[in-house]
């Protein structure tokens, strides 16, 4: 492997480019019209234009990407996450073009990419799955019938799904028709496959997933779990490892199940087996949810706690190297948390925001890692996911990691676009989330519905004293002429003027 084309953009493209450079591998970035000066383009050795801003015409444009690979002399393709990363046809096309696809074989992607086939694979490997029904056909009537057989509350899910897209909860019979139609439509648009199936809704579950790594020589190891229960609209917001208050026996069973599931399908590459967890302590039950056959957004927490670099691992495995460590060599040390920093407005239902990053200053310091793909001056547009950066911290204990995260979030200065950092701070401050290293017996009361239930407490405005301080700054800033003040100046203000202040 000599030259890798990264078929992605943003922070993950930068992340992969860095790892390649560290391994002495040349890199080729691809870019759309919107990304000519994006950080991933500047980070790479070469950059190829693949189309207009719309992802469908650029980062999802298979012929253009394959042409870029051929023209640039790349011999391998890293798909990142999202976009084409779980597209079996793309993996197949890469293989046919003589390119190493840095991921599992196309057949494995196809199998695990269908939720129904993945469910069957998990069951045959002895891994528990959520009770559910695959509709006899994809007609609205057949799906509605499947919902009624599962009983309420039920969950309609896209067979090809991921990231919460094409997923609908139905609690009453009269919600079924609209939910079926909208789930199918969203699934069709997001995955080019509108097929759905139905599961029993596990109420107040935790989302816990296991990182696995398989090589081309039949070895599979796990790198322990991640707790991703803090979600909004089925999208993860904060992830951490180790999972708080997870009984050791349950952890052992889940990691073994993940290795069994991956081994059963001949898995190669870094991958994630997602579970939902119901109940507490030794009695908690877990069910297979799906397998993601690619690097996960939240992979950094695993890297920090296990000390293993997953992108380096992907590159080595794709190059045919047998695993260079055993399961016994993998240990958890300390605690890591990731916050996803999004351009979205917590006071307006977490709606994505657009604008320009007039000021963008990342936090730094001991135990603080930022994986980002934006820079100051850049426009945040409507074309792509509104994630700006991932802020990840590592510390000796969960309490210390929580405190470190709060300080790092406060030091993350992003101006010009509304964002969710105040929301993340409020979330970390919820008593259910803080938990202060509580004894196991006390339990952990975070589940995937927590954010929705506590939304009102998560967009609380700052107190009047802080507001007055901000208004005093505002007066001084209004008097300046450049985006960056050029020299020192001073003002003393009683900020009780009737200015219009919007705050988060």
């Amino acid at each position, binding site marked *: 492997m000599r030259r890798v084309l990264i078929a992605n953009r943003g922070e993950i493209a930068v992340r992969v480019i860095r790892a390649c450079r560290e391994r002495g591998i040349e890199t080729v970035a691809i870019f759309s019209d919107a990304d000519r000066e994006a950080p991933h383009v500047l980070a790479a050795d070469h950059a190829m234009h693949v189309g207009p801003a719309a992802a469908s015409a650029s980062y999802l444009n298979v012929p253009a990407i394959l042409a870029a690979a051929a023209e640039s002399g790349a011999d391998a393709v890293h798909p990142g996450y999202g976009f084409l990363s779980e597209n079996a046809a793309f993996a197949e096309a890469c293989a046919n073009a003589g390119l190493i696809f840095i991921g599992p074989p196309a057949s494995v992607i196809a199998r695990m990419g269908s939720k129904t086939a993945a469910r069957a694979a998990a069951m045959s490997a002895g891994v528990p799955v959520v009770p559910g029904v695959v509709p006899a056909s994809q007609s609205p009537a057949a799906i509605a019938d499947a919902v009624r057989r599962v009983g309420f509350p039920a969950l309609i899910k896209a067979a090809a799904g991921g990231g919460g897209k094409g997923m609908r909860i139905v609690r009453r019979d009269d919600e079924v028709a609209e939910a079926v139609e909208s789930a199918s439509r969203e699934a069709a648009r997001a995955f080019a496959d509108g097929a759905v199936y139905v599961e029993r809704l596990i109420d107040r579950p935790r989302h816990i997933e296991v990182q696995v790594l398989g090589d081309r020589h039949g070895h599979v190891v796990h790198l322990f779990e991640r707790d991703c229960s803090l979600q909004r609209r089925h999208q993860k917001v904060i992830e951490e490892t180790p999972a708080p208050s997870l009984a050791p026996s349950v952890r052992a069973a889940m990691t073994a199940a993940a290795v069994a599931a991956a081994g059963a399908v001949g898995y190669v590459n870094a991958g994630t087996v997602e579970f939902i967890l119901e109940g507490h302590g030794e009695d908690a039950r877990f069910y297979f949810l799906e397998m993601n056959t690619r690097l996960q957004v939240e992979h950094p927490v695993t890297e920090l706690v296990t000390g293993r670099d997953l992108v380096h691992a992907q590159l080595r495995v794709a190059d045919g190297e047998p695993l260079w460590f055993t399961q016994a060599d993998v240990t958890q040390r300390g605690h890591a948390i990731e916050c996803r920093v999004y351009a979205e407005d917590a006071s307006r239902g977490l709606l994505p925001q657009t604008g320009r990053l007039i000021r963008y200053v990342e936090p730094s310091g001991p135990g603080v890692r930022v994986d980002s793909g934006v820079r100051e001056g850049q426009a945040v547009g409507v074309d792509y996911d509104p994630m700006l950066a991932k802020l990840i911290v590592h510390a000796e204990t969960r309490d210390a990691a929580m405190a470190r995260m709060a300080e790092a979030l406060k030091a993350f200065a992003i101006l010009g676009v509304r964002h969710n*950092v105040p929301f993340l701070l409020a979330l970390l401050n919820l008593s259910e989330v803080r938990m202060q290293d509580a004894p196991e017996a006390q339990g952990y009361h975070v589940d995937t519905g927590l954010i929705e239930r506590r939304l009102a407490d998560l967009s609380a405005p700052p107190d009047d004293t802080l507001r007055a301080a901000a208004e005093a700054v505002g007066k001084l800033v209004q008097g300046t002429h450049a985006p960056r003040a050029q020299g020192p100046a001073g003002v003393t203000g009683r900020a009780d003027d009737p200015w219009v202040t919007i705050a988060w």
Partner: protein
Amino acid sequence: MVTPREWHVTALADGRYRVEDGARVMTAHAVRDGGTAWIWLDGHLFEITPPASTRARAPHDDDALMPQMSAKVIRVLVAAGQTVASGDLLVVLEAMKMELPIRAPRAGVVKTLRCAEGDLVQPGTPVLDMQ
């Protein structure tokens, strides 16, 4: 009500501001963007507009009929003249790969439709008018 309290603010060389009131010292990041000052202070984001440049506008039910961002209309479920109940789904938008439902903020009648499927709509403009 803003607590009247003396804050002293000093601009530093790199766009930071030192904010102090004798007891507490904080550092803010702030920039001006047109008439708006963006301020990051103690984990809170402020957008401040001076009184002169403010256009008074009372909050309005029909805010619910405006998209919060540029979006594409993917479905229109009502027609002009149609009577709707509070909460009825009127239009479905899509932006950043997500569906954004526009629902009736109250019971009423659709007066004018201002969009069609496939249109791109902008924030601040209602997708339809209600009577």
